[in-house]
Each structure stands twice: as structure tokens, then as C-alpha cells.
């Protein structure tokens, strides 16, 4: 590795880099920064909800917080974090020297920070930030929106462009850059889940762009796509939004499934059970995600036939999702398990995501959903799948691969403390939300009647604990990078399989300049 191939020095290394590892690193740090920002918004929400009555913020500002919390977490934290992981890991997992489209890779990262800067700047604009929820239903987000909505629309456009470019890059990389002998059915499951996710993204991000463009037209150019007064249809907005929005939640969770499918076998010291069925289950979930969107809209007054169709289709998703959970558990069955931090987070994922799946199944039942819809039961449900699902698995991924990235080992005891504080804090925060939701507390309200007071206080305390545990995570990562114990061998985890464990730790700036040889045994684990 001569100086010629090493990274550039100073800022230009990061600004101009086309290296998948550098770009992956930037994505990961950016998403963590957004995670902290979105978390700060959540802390404001939970602080206001700590007690009944308005204490800290005004109702309008509260709505800005819930809106920005959702947008920043979904588009700024979770999605970019998995793109970062894809950047780092996919080339190393398929034996490729880099991503297929490295300059576009640089561009797709670097348009993200300005986009979120623009979104965050709306907080300081007259009329305040968007306050219509992350689902931005028209006409609240059009006729009745603050002027900053235009900046929000532009930000969504830019991050959509970023996502589409990132996805095209992943598709191109996986399809064209696999090492000889790495057939599709030998790819690690993380690569498979990301390939499917990338197709989902390319399919639905333009739909989101269409939705916000129609909003822009309604607001500034006198059209009436979503305005009933002009002959338009507010429900059209919801159909378009959720045609994007439902695949979007699988975009978030499928790479998480991929991560868990890498880590559970490693710490079970046993190959993943049902590899092929995992691939098919992922593809089925992705396909089903296109025909279930209106289960978010059971109360808009669809005809009963439509309601039944969406109910049946939604219930079907339980089948492939169940297959995945059964496969993970069977992978553990009669393995030789150990419980290092990545495995703990995966087990946390498995338990809590399954609970989130159960509440999802309950929500799919249309008549019951009339009672659940837009209550805290839904809030609890999607935090179980988004936080305990996506964020836990992302955290597991960081602990699992950070020795490969940095060449240094994280502190196992601190990692375990991080897990237990997160796990306990998370459950204290979100489990009681099932209760208040069922008891009748609507979501997105800044103040609530007295019967919900105890559980809300509990929920806020849990949220503060969970929030604080992320600072522990940051500390742990920084300590690892600057002072972690250096690791000697390439393969850090004795049960781990895959090409990424055949390169040194830390992974050199360029890996697999010569394609590796794939033998039948070492593939797909």
C-alpha cells in the first residue's frame, strides 16, 4: 500500500473522496449526528408530556417537534445509517474493490447535509418549522401550512435524490461487482436485503417526490390536487404518501433483518438456518409492501371492499415475517451461543421486534384498528419496530464491525452496559404507551387528560434513560477509536463468516483490488 493509494490529507479527503469506506464513515457519523438531533426533539416532546398541562412549550411548537423528530429520525438517522453500512460492507462482502459508481457515491452523501441544514433552519423561520406531522397530510400541510413548508419540500426533494442515487449505486455494485464465483445465492444476507431495499427505494422515492411536488403546486401555483374546494382530493394525498410510506418502513427494516442474519449465526457458531427461505421471505415482504398501503387509512372511509382487500393483504405480511423470526430462532437452536454486545442487541431486536410484529398484526385487523388508529398504541407499535428493530440492529452492526473498521476493540463491559440501559430504558419508555393508547390517548397531542398521567410520566423517564444511553454509545465509540485495544487477527469473532473477515483489521483503504476466490463453503454467512 504505497502513499499513492492512501487517502488524501485534510478536508479534501472527505470532500472529494470516492472511497466507499470514507463515504461509509461519513454516512455513519452524519446519521449519528441526526440521531442525536432527532433524539433532542424527542426529549422536548417527552419533557412536555411528563405531566398534564402545558409547561415548557406551546402546542404549535410541540407539533414542530413531533414533525421534525419523525422526519429527522426516518430520513436523517435510520436511512443514512444503513446506507453508510452498505457503503462500508457491501463491497467487502462481495469481494469488490469499491462501489460501482464512486463519484455519484460522493455526491449522494454530500447533498444530504445541506438538505437537513435546510430542514433544521425552518425552526428559525417566521411561522416556525413544519408542524403537520412527518406524514404531512394535506390540507394541513398545504393551505394551512407555515411558509417554511416550501423549504421542507425542497429538503425532501434533495434527500430523495440522494436516496435514489445511493440505491442505484448499490444495485449497480451488487449486480456487476461481485467477485467471480459469488453467485446471487452465495451472497451474504445483508447484501441480499440491501439489494431488495434498493429496488424498493428506486420504486417509491419518486412517488414521494411526486407527492411533495403536487403540494408545491397547490401552495404556489394555484393547483388543487389536494384541495376539495378546487375539485381536488385530500385523500389522494394519503394514497400517494402511503404508496411511498409503507414500502418506506420496509426500506428501514429490511437492512436491519440483513444485519441480524449476519450476527446471529456468528454468535451461534452455526450457519444461518433457511438461507434460501430468508431470501424469498425478504422478496415477498418487499412485494407485499406495494399492496398494503391503505392499512394506514382504515378510517378515511374507503369502500368496504377496499378495506377488506387491504386487511387481508396486510395480514399476509405476517407469514414471511414469521418465517424470518422462526429461522433466526432455529439458527440459535443447538448452536454454541455467546453473548457479546452485538449478539445482545440482536437478541433485544428479536424479542422487541417480535412484539412490534404482534402489535402490527393487531393493527392489521381493520375493525380493531378503528380503536387503535392514531392512538399511542400505534406510537408504541412503530417505535418497537423502528427503534428496537432498526436502531438496535444498527447498533449491533456498529459493535460487530467496528473492530474491522478501526482495527480496535470496543470495551465489552461498556457495550453491555449500553445494551442493558438501552433495553430497559426503551421498554420503560414505550411499553406503557400500549396501555395509554388502548385506554384512548390520541397521538400527537401536547397535553392529555389526567387518567394518562402516570404512564406518561413513566414513559418520559424511560425516554430520558434511553436518550442518555446513546451518549454512552457515543463515548464508547470514541474511546474505541482513540484508545481501544488493537486487534491482531483478521477474523475477530470466531463464529463469523464472510469475505470481510479475510481482510486485515483495520480494513486497508483499498480492499480486494484483486478479486478473491470464492469457495463453496465460505459463502453466504
Amino acid at each position, binding site marked *: 500500500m504505497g502513499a499513492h493509494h492512501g487517502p488524501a490529507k485534510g478536508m479534501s479527503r472527505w470532500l472529494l473522496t470516492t472511497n466507499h469506506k470514507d463515504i461509509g464513515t461519513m454516512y455513519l457519523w452524519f446519521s449519528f449526528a441526526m440521531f442525536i438531533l432527532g433524539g433532542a426533539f424527542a426529549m422536548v416532546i417527552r419533557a412536555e408530556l411528563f405531566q398534564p*398541562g*402545558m*409547561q415548557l412549550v*406551546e402546542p*404549535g411548537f410541540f*407539533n414542530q417537534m413531533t414533525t421534525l423528530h419523525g422526519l429527522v429520525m426516518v430520513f436523517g438517522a435510520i436511512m443514512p445509517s444503513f446506507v453508510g453500512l452498505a457503503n462500508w460492507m457491501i463491497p467487502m462482502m462481495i469481494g469488490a474493490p469499491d462501489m460501482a459508481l464512486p463519484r455519484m457515491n460522493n455526491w449522494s452523501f454530500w447533498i444530504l447535509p445541506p438538505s437537513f441544514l435546510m430542514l433544521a433552519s425552518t425552526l428559525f423561520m417566521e411561522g416556525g418549522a413544519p408542524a403537520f406531522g412527518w406524514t404531512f*397530510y394535506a390540507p*394541513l400541510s398545504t393551505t*394551512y401550512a407555515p411558509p417554511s413548508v416550501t423549504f421542507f419540500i425542497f429538503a425532501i426533494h434533495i434527500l430523495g435524490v440522494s436516496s435514489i442515487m445511493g440505491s442505484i449505486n448499490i444495485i449497480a455494485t451488487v449486480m456487476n461487482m461481485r467477485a467471480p464465483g459469488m453467485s446471487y445465492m452465495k451472497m451474504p444476507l445483508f447484501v441480499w436485503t440491501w439489494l431488495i431495499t434498493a429496488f424498493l427505494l428506486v420504486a417509491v422515492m419518486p412517488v414521494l417526490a411526486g407527492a411533495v411536488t403536487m403540494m408545491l403546486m397547490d401552495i404556489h401555483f394555484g393547483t388543487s390536487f389536494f384541495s*376539495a374546494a378546487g375539485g*381536488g*382530493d*385530500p*385523500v389522494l394525498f394519503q394514497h400517494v404518501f402511503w404508496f411511498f410510506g409503507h414500502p418506506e418502513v420496509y426500506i428501514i427494516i429490511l437492512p436491519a433483518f440483513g444485519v441480524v442474519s449476519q450476527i446471529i449465526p456468528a454468535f*451461534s*457458531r*452455526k450457519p*444461518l*438456518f*433457511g*438461507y434460501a427461505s430468508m431470501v424469498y421471505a425478504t422478496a415477498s415482504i418487499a412485494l407485499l409492501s406495494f399492496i398494503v398501503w391503505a392499512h394506514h387509512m382504515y378510517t*378515511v*372511509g374507503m369502500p368496504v371492499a377496499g*378495506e*377488506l382487500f387491504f*386487511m387481508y393483504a396486510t*395480514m399476509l405480511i*405476517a*407469514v414471511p415475517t414469521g418465517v424470518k423470526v*422462526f429461522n433466526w430462532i432455529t439458527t*440459535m437452536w*443447538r448452536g*454454541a*451461543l*455467546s*453473548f457479546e454486545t452485538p449478539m445482545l442487541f440482536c*437478541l433485544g431486536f428479536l*424479542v422487541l421486534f*417480535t412484539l412490534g410484529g*404482534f402489535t402490527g398484526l*393487531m393493527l392489521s385487523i381493520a375493525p*380493531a384498528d378503528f*380503536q387503535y*388508529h392514531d*392512538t399511542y398504541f400505534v406510537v408504541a407499535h412503530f417505535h418497537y419496530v423502528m427503534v428496537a428493530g432498526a436502531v438496535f440492529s444498527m447498533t449491533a452492526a456498529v459493535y460487530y464491525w467496528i473492530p474491522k473498521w478501526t482495527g480496535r476493540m470496543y470495551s465489552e463491559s461498556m457495550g*453491555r452496559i449500553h445494551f*442493558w440501559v438501552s433495553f*430497559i430504558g426503551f421498554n420503560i419508555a414505550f*411499553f406503557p404507551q*400500549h*396501555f395509554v393508547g*388502548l*385506554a384512548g390517548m*390520541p397521538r*400527537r397531542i401536547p*397535553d*392529555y*387528560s*389526567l387518567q394518562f398521567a402516570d*404512564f406518561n410520566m413513566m414513559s418520559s423517564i424511560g425516554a430520558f434513560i434511553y436518550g442518555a444511553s446513546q451518549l454512552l454509545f457515543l463515548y464508547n465509540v470514541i474511546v474505541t477509536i482513540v484508545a481501544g485495544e488493537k486487534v491482531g487477527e483478521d477474523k475477530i469473532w470466531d463464529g463469523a463468516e464472510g469475505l470481510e473477515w479475510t481482510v486485515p483489521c483495520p480494513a486497508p483503504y483499498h480492499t480486494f483490488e484483486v478479486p478473491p476466490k470464492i469457495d463453496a463453503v465460505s459463502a453466504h454467512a
Partner: protein
Amino acid sequence: MNFKTVAKACVVSLLVSGPTWALAQNQINMAKGVTEVGAQIYGLHMLIFWICAVIGVAVFAVMFYSIIYHRKSRGVTPAQFHDSTQVEIIWTIIPFLILIGMAVPATSTLLEVYNTDDAEIDILITGYQWKWKYEYLDEQGDNVVFFSNLATSQEEIYNTDAKGANYLLSVDEPMVIPVDTKVRFLVTANDVIHSWWVPELAVKRDAIPGFINEAWTKVPTEGVYRGQCTELCGAYHGFMPIEVHAVSREEYDAWLAAKRSEKVAQTAAAQQALGFEELMASGEAVYRAQCSACHGAQGEGGVGNAIAGSAIALGEVAKHLEVGIKGVAGTAMQAFGGQLSDVDMAAVITYQRNAFGNNTGDIVQPADVVNHKQG
């Protein structure tokens, strides 16, 4: 005792003590529902809950068995099996059959929810930012219309007064319906999307501008049933509760008759001139119910502009009436002309022009409001 054991003990004690503590003080489950449909939905909810619970216990039992017995520290040798088409088929088909078992009762309940035929009473529910309008439709066209506003005071919300028992859940004028009667709700909205939900009646329907959605209920027992708006509708989304009083048929008829005579009395009152003190007193009441959330308890402003010292409140009466009656397009300032009686409108305009240091001395009479409306 190492850290792991301590942590496990914490989790276990939390799981064990949590629910018992909770049961004593707080509702943790869905309302059983007073209506037949409500009871069906509750039954469906519990059915799915128990199916999930049984599956969950089975799945987690296997997982924890592995975690306990198949651990490396016990010196086990890992098995290497990794495929079984037979097993995959079994655990695809069994969940599928369970789903069919759930879908059957769900379908029949859903059809019941959608069956709005043969209603005896029709009530048009219109969502406004941030109140509900109830209009009892009458075949002769003699509709009874009124608005239902949050009755909780700003002082309770901002913690200067103690919070009452039905904090945020009581209204100034509740919806009244007779028991044992099929009532159909026609649900729409005036501005943004709202959603009308009363948990115990198991009725939730989005109120969407330009659409009229249907829902229905048939309440068997007299009582007060409370709910809230469940679709984010702007700043005061959390402050537009629903209160339904289910009463006997006789009581309902009497109430409806009283509402009709009230309407006649209001028309008559609009013809009479009122004294300044009288206008100010009722104006203050109207202001607190209708205006103070946005314009501030002392007219200092908030979501809406300040009233104290405002150009409109100190300027021409006609302009002030125009804003009050027709609202300001594209803002949260609604057209109150259809929401307030002419007397109330006159009173609140008078109040705004003479309170908070706006000492214009102007008196606006109901007749002025009527004249303004007629142009």
C-alpha cells in the same frame, strides 16, 4: 452476583411488578365498549391478543431455552444443520391458517361497522379548527345546529388552576342522542382533516373536507361518553374533545324541542338592543370560550394576533365585524358568522373593543351584526 444477573433481576422484577402496579390505578386495555359493535371489536382485539400471546410464549420459550442450554460456556458443540424445506413449509402454512381464523370474525365485524342502513336520526358532524359542529338533520329542514367547544379553561391548561376531573375531556355543549336508537353520523370537515372518535362507542371516522363519511351507533345504556379528535389538525389538535350524552327518548325529545325554541329566542333577541354591561359580560364569556386559545386570555396574542391595541379592534367597527364574521382566508382565523349567534357576535366584538385597554367606548348591537351580514 455479576452484572448480568443484576440486570436480569431488574428486568424480571419490572415485568412482574409493572402490570400489578398498573392495574391498581390505570386503565391498560381497550374500552370494552357499551355498544354491540364495540363489544365485538373488543372481543376481536382480545382474540388476536391471546393468539399473539400464545405464539409469543412458544417462540420466546424456544429462544430462551437456546439461550440457557445452548450456550458456548456450557461447552456445547454447535450443530451444523441449516436447511429443511419441510420445516419451512410447516411454519408457512400454520401461520397462514391462523390468519384465516382471524380474518373470518374480522370480516363480519367490519361489515357490521359499515352497515349504516335504517338509521332513525342523522347528525352531521363537521370538524373545525378546533371544535366540532353538530347539526341534527330534520326532514322539514328545521335543523338544530350548534358548536361544541372545549370547556377546560386556559388557567387549568397552564397550571394556574387545579385541573378538574374531566380535564380536556368536557365541552360546553355536548352531543345528545337517545338510547336504543340507531343514530347515523355524517362526518365531514370545514378546514383540515379531523377524526371523530368516542372509544366507548367504538366509532372513529375521519372528518375530511369535501367528503362525507358515514358511521353509526346504537347506545343501549344512558351515560356520558367522551372522546377526542384523533387526526392531527393543527396547534390545538389536543384541545377539541367530544362529549356524547346518551339519554332516554323523552329526555332527548325535550332537549331537541328546547334547542328549537332557543333558536327562535335568539332570532328575537337579535332584534333587541342590549346594555353595555350586559354585552361586556356575555362578550367575556364568549371570548374565553372561542377566542382566548389563539388570542390569549389577556388579548396578548398567540397563534392569532394580539387583540390588545390591535388596529382592527381599535379601528372601524365594520372592518372588525368583517373579520369576526367572515374570518381571514388562509389563516386559522375562521368565519365565526355561522358559529356564533348574532347576540354573541355583537357581545364579543363589543368586549374586544372595550377590554384589554382597548377603550373605544363602541357598543355593537345584535342588529349591527344582522345588518352587516345582510351587507
